[in-house]
């Protein structure tokens, strides 16, 4: 019922994670950055579920649900920030907010 071995699911998860990381590093629009972040989280979720299935342990699925909840919370706050930036008529560009420098 599983299909290919758990290892393949893990491969997909790794690819998703790496893709999400790539997106976070490369994109300038904060919205796209948040989306890439979501990709990363989903990759992690997939790995959790896969291991949970492999070990027949429910903790992985519980963890994944927790991750989902936290991701929702984080998106809420993140989008709030984007909206606030937009209200200030500032450019929606992560490179613009570079005051935290040496």
């Amino acid at each position, binding site marked *: 019922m599983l299909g290919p071995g758990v290892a393949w699911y893990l491969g997909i998860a790794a690819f998703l994670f790496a893709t999400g990381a790539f997106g976070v590093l490369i994109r300038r629009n904060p919205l796209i950055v948040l989306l890439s972040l979501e990709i990363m989280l989903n990759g992690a979720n997939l790995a959790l579920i896969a291991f949970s299935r492999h070990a027949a342990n429910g903790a992985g699925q519980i963890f994944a649900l927790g991750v989902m909840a936290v991701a929702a919370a984080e998106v809420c706050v993140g989008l709030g920030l984007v909206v606030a930036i937009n209200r200030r008529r500032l450019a929606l560009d992560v*490179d613009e907010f*570079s005051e935290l420098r*040496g």
Partner: protein
Amino acid sequence: MIAGAWLCLWAPLAGTVLILLGGTRMPRKVAAWAATTSVFVAFAGAVWSFLELHANADHHSHYSALWTWLAAGKFTVPFEIVVDPLSTFMMLIVSGVGGLIVLYSIGYMDGDDEERRYFAYIAFFVFSMLLLVEGGNMLLLLVGWGLVGLSSYLLIGFWHERPSAVAAAKKAFIMNAFGDATFALALFVLIAHSNSLEFATSFATASHLSQSTVDLVALGLLGGAAAKSAQVPLHTWLPDAMEGPTPVSALIHAATMVTAGVYLIARTHPIFEDAPTIALVAAGLGAITLLMAGMIALVQTDIKRVIAYSTMSQIGYMFMAAGVGAFSNGMFHLMTHAFFKALLFMAAGLVIHAVADEQDIRKLRGVGALMPFTKWAFLIGAAALVGIPAFSGFFSKDPILAADLHDHWYGVVFWACGLVGTFLTGLYTFRLYFIVFPGEPSPFVREHYHSHHGREGSWTMLVPVGVLTVLAAVAGWIQFQPFWEPITHWLSPVIPTEPAAEATNWDDAITSVIAPILGIAGIVVAWLIYGARQRLAVPRIAWLQRLLEHKFYFDEAYDLVFYKPAVATATLWRRDFEEPVVLTTGSDLGEGTLELGNATRRIQNGLLRTYVFFLGAGMAVLAVVFLAVR
């Protein structure tokens, strides 16, 4: 007896502490009298201790320890004092003469800006000297030794606004530090072999050491003694030390500190008896110093420096005595010397104080007409110094020469040196007297002399001078070798005279006849040259004059050998190492750090993506590292 000794030791320290705590709130006179009283209390303690010891039939050494001062494994040093004939003898001299001099200082230092500091220092000095003579083991002796060196430095440089005084203080301290170092090295050798610095164990150990080792120990002790007592070759600091106030010169550089070297040799005489070569060196140094100082004193024009060289010369006598083993003779001369030398200094001080602090004898001509009391005091002191029969010096100096005569062939050489020295003593002492005191007062004196309410000085100055005059005149009668010798008998349990130095009656007789004759001859020559009618002219030998005026070029030699190379080395190091390497290292380190910081700063470019990148990259690297490690 023990209680008296402890009282004697702690009273002056209590005086110092009192003055220190009082600070500027304490009135000056109170500070002065506090110091004086503390020293007189010490004298009372010394007298008490002496009387009890005298009553105690068995006069051996009594030790009393307060606490264990130093404990390092098996090596322990208790804070102990020794009460025995030698230490009580020294205690009496130090506290007695010291008390008189501190009393004299009240008048002399009256009106000085920093009077309290002076009295704190001088009380501290008396404490240090008492610690030195009462110290119950070699280490405490060294502690007292070092502390008197410190007090001497503080007091010579008392008028610290004068660069010459500061330089003199440093010179004294550094030369004494050399002696301290050799002393300490000797102690190290003793510790290495015996693990204890108690007198008895040290002496016992020394007797079992190889000859070269015990010679080394004795040489180290001699080095310390020679530095402290201003013997050749470590003597150049004493004339410069006259920069200090006159009472300081009287107390430290005449009566007590400079005699510490003689005391050391006497106290550690078993070691010197085991090292006869070094003892001979000691005697030889004494003889050389005796002659050299006597000659230099002939050309000095500063009243205090003449007396300083005289001190150096007389201590040469004491070293000669100690070197050949006539310890009690040396100690007796120490006692009488304390009296008449302090008297001479204090009389000179009366003159200096009354004539606007002038010390040049050429300007002080004829001051005796205005200051008769001082003139007579000085005259009696001078007579005692020369060794004129019936005055104290006669009774103490001649037995030394007699002991020398008896002792081997080199003893005769020392005897001859001593006799020449007697002639020189008469000559320079009375040169000084005839120039300064008799005759018409010079214009300078007439102009600058001011009396103290009609008298020559305040009573605090006159009374000690008077007391010492009496002592200088009659104190010698206490021992007339070979007829009655209470001092020798008193000291013999601790410092018995060596058999080789026991003078025979014949030796005593010859010496006691020839020496005074030579002394009087010196006086006569001085009178002929410097007296009122100047019958003889001073012989003008240019090279000799130059040699004596430059004090045999010792200062120049030391300057060349020690000072200039040291300065050159220091300059070399500064120029070629410290400035290019060390200093720039400091600044380079700073600059380098700044550069590094600047470079690192540019990583923080403010872009979020860069930060995230570094996060990710770091994570990737760490993952590899962890994999590799596990």
